[in-house]
């Protein structure tokens, strides 16, 4: 990219160099990221929640080959404008209409971040979307960082949730208090139709003659316990689940979320980690760094990232400190996830970073000590027990590194 390449290639000769895409998942968003990362060209494109897994079969290929394959399979028109790779879907309106609206996902994300219990009203709105669109939310980067698999709830509980969506405000209120009990004759026509469809999915053998005797109960507790029962004569069915991203959806048992992952490390010794030096040699931490006090897990390709300058203000500050106080170099290691030793070597040379970097090529160490893609600094005491965790680029770029080594 401009200003960062010591011997810039031209656009034309770069285009002829085969590149190998290695996304975490083969979603459109991740593949576009990989194209920008591997070609080192600025890129702007519209983006949808869909799989581009069939790009994988291409293997190492030139940029024009990759673009051609993508256009043939998914209809993306490519252009080069002011040095940017510009990608526009040829089916923009159809793609956008197919996606769950971003505003709905955003509202859901804000709710989940505020309260891990899932709200029935939001789930009911989501449940109105086709299963394929809800399934595609697995490719929504922010949702997956915040609540992996949460997109399954409006799919798995589609029947009850859509039924809930037909209730009046007063009835919804009762669902959240003592529970709502309804007899079949009390159901409105849309509710009856929906109940029929729900029954057909769950119990196709139930004779329609008994429907007039049907009753159902829906309840949602303040702990996130969602219960739906229906009964027709001697036949009944019960659905119990926990709509809370902290809990096991079946048992209600509390679990550690990925966003809370570092809490698992707090006060405990650092686990043993195997990494690679820029020269490719194995390095075992913390064994091979006796004086280690700070572990910074941070990808050179930080994403998502919006930052002034070249987006590495945090590392430049740290590098300046280590240049001024070289004795501190023994006390810190920068772990670069999803990056090969050769890439680490080229990156620190290009950015002129005086930092002890280690490669975590498959991201496995990051998965053990961090879990997420955002940068994290882990501070340990002399016994290598975790005493402090700093998460997020904004927090890390504003930290006074010198205080962490005291």
């Amino acid at each position, binding site marked *: *990219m*401009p*200003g*960062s390449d010591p011997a810039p290639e031209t656009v034309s000769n770069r285009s002829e160099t085969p590149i190998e895409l290695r996304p975490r998942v083969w*979603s*459109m*968003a*991740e593949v*576009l*990221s990989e194209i*920008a*990362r591997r070609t080192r060209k*600025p*890129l*702007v*494109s*519209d*983006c*949808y*929640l869909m799989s581009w897994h069939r790009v994988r079969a291409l293997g190492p290929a030139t940029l024009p080959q990759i673009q051609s394959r993508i256009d043939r399979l998914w209809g993306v028109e490519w252009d080069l*404008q*002011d*040095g*940017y790779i*510009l*990608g*526009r*879907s040829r089916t*923009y309106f159809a793609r*956008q209409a197919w*996606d769950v*609206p*971003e*505003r709905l996902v*955003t509202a859901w994300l804000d709710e989940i971040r505020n309260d891990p219990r899932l709200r029935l009203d939001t789930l009911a709105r989501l449940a109105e979307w086709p299963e394929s669109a809800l399934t595609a939310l697995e*490719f*929504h*980067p*922010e949702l997956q960082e915040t609540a992996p698999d949460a997109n399954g709830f409006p799919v798995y509980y589609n029947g009850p949730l859509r039924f809930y969506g037909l209730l009046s405000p007063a009835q919804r209120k009762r669902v959240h208090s003592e529970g709502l009990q309804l007899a079949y004759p009390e159901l409105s026509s849309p509710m009856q139709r929906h109940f029929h469809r729900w029954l057909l999915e769950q119990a196709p053998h139930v004779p329609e003659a008994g429907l007039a005797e049907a009753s159902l109960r829906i309840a949602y507790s303040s702990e996130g316990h969602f219960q739906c029962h229906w009964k027709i004569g001697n036949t009944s069915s019960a659905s119990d689940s926990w709509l809370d991203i902290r809990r096991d959806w079946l048992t209600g048992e509390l679990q550690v979320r990925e966003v809370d992952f570092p809490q698992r490390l707090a006060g405990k010794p650092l686990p043993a980690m195997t990494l690679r030096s820029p020269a490719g040699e194995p390095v075992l931490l913390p064994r091979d760094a006796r004086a280690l006090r700070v572990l910074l897990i941070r990808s050179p*390709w*930080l*994403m*998502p*990232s*919006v*930052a*002034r*300058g*070249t*987006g590495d203000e945090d590392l430049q500050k740290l590098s300046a400190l280590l240049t001024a106080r070289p004795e501190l170099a023994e006390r810190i290691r920068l772990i670069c996830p999803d990056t090969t030793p050769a890439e680490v070597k080229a990156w620190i040379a290009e950015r002129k970073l005086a930092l002890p970097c280690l490669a975590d090529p498959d991201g496995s160490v990051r998965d053990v000590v961090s879990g997420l893609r955002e940068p994290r600094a882990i501070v340990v005491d002399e016994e290598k027990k975790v005493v402090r965790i700093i998460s997020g680029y904004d927090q890390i770029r504003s930290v006074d590194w010198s205080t962490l080594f005291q």
Partner: protein
Amino acid sequence: MVCRLPVILVSLCACLLGTSSTPVAAEVDGAFRGDSRLTQPLTVRVSGMSLDRLLPRISKELGVTLRPGSTAVGDIRVAVFAEGLPADFLSEPNSANPARPCHAG
């Protein structure tokens, strides 16, 4: 060559939404010309993010409020990768397309 990220972004959105019937905003012109906040280099790496979420993040870095000119623009999910590029798109608002789906203030 000077690349202006938001101009490209705006151009993309305008192409997607069309320029004749989309109620895009064009309320800022000369007011920010020469504003040093908009000449700051910016690095953006996002993929699958809506403009509703991206523009506030850019605003925070630049110290200038940017917001989508309409719901349709805000809902557009984009992939944007640019490193250390100037953000002075408001000084040349019409370079790529007469439609500009962003307000600034």
